[in-house]
């Protein structure tokens, strides 16, 4: 092989190395972007999970427990009525309070649903209206 041919081969090899280096850089960039996207997705998933858990906990405190409060209050009113232990105006007031409590519990359900709807892109408009209407 003459010197000219060797020099050409070296140039070809250098060009090949340059192309491969460029390809590696591109691949590194793609991997880095994919990794970043994956990290963002994981973060979004974690946030969504945290929101969901917060919703469940707040829902339990502001729905399940209040319903128990109303149940107990109604049981007391019934007991008072059965034992003729309460004036009609007090019975009426206690029942009015339970109506207000139930109204508020319904509002709490809508408020909590709204929080979920606001962070969910996958619900249809009809479902959103049903949950928050």
């Amino acid at each position, binding site marked *: 092989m003459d010197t000219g041919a060797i020099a050409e081969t070296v140039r070809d090899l250098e060009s090949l190395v340059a192309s491969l280096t460029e390809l590696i850089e591109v691949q590194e960039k793609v991997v880095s972007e994919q990794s970043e996207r994956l990290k963002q997705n994981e973060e979004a998933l974690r946030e969504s999970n945290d929101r969901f858990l917060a919703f469940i906990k707040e829902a339990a*405190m502001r729905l399940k*427990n*209040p319903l*128990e*409060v109303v149940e107990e209050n109604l049981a007391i009113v019934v007991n008072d009525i059965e034992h003729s232990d309460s004036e009609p105006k*007090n019975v009426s*007031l206690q029942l009015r309070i339970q109506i207000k409590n139930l109204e508020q519990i319904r509002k709490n359900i809508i408020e909590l649903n709204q929080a979920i709807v606001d962070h969910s892109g996958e619900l249809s408009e009809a479902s959103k209206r049903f949950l928050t209407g």
Partner: protein
Amino acid sequence: MEFPITDIKDDEIYLIMALASDIRNENIELIKMLLARDYYVLVITTNQPYDVLKKNYEKRGIAMEKVFIVDTITKYALGHDHEPVKNCRFVNNPADMTSIGIAVTESLSGLKGKKVSLLFDSVNSMLIYISSQNITKFIHFITNRLRLLNFSGMFLAVEKGLDPDVLTQLTTFVDEVVDIDKIPQKESG
């Protein structure tokens, strides 16, 4: 049945945990215990209206002279004012923490220099009207007022009605958590 805690300290703040079905009775037993110890008692009621509380107290032999009440529910349920009562302040709405805060602050200031305990009935019924985040802030505010004035305080709550994280936060505001259910009850004669 008498109130099962005997070593209540004068200016300490307690979170009292009870069953939902026992809350009304615990309110009465706590008032009786506090009055027997010469306390003036300020009751913040978010569930039982003043008229019903007064009737229940009187039926159980509790004199109202040293009992003061901030009633957050009557006016809201009636939709109009209750006739004025000497020892009770009626707040418009149980969700109006500012008005409740003002009523409590004014009531406590009026009792300055006396031996006072505040009874909050209850954390759970207030959760119907305000979020756990806001109720935590509100209880922090009230406990701060009590500590500034060296007053005692008792916050009634249903033991299974609170999220553990909220309960942990509330315990940082009080001196002691008392679980009524876990204390052997003593029958009185």
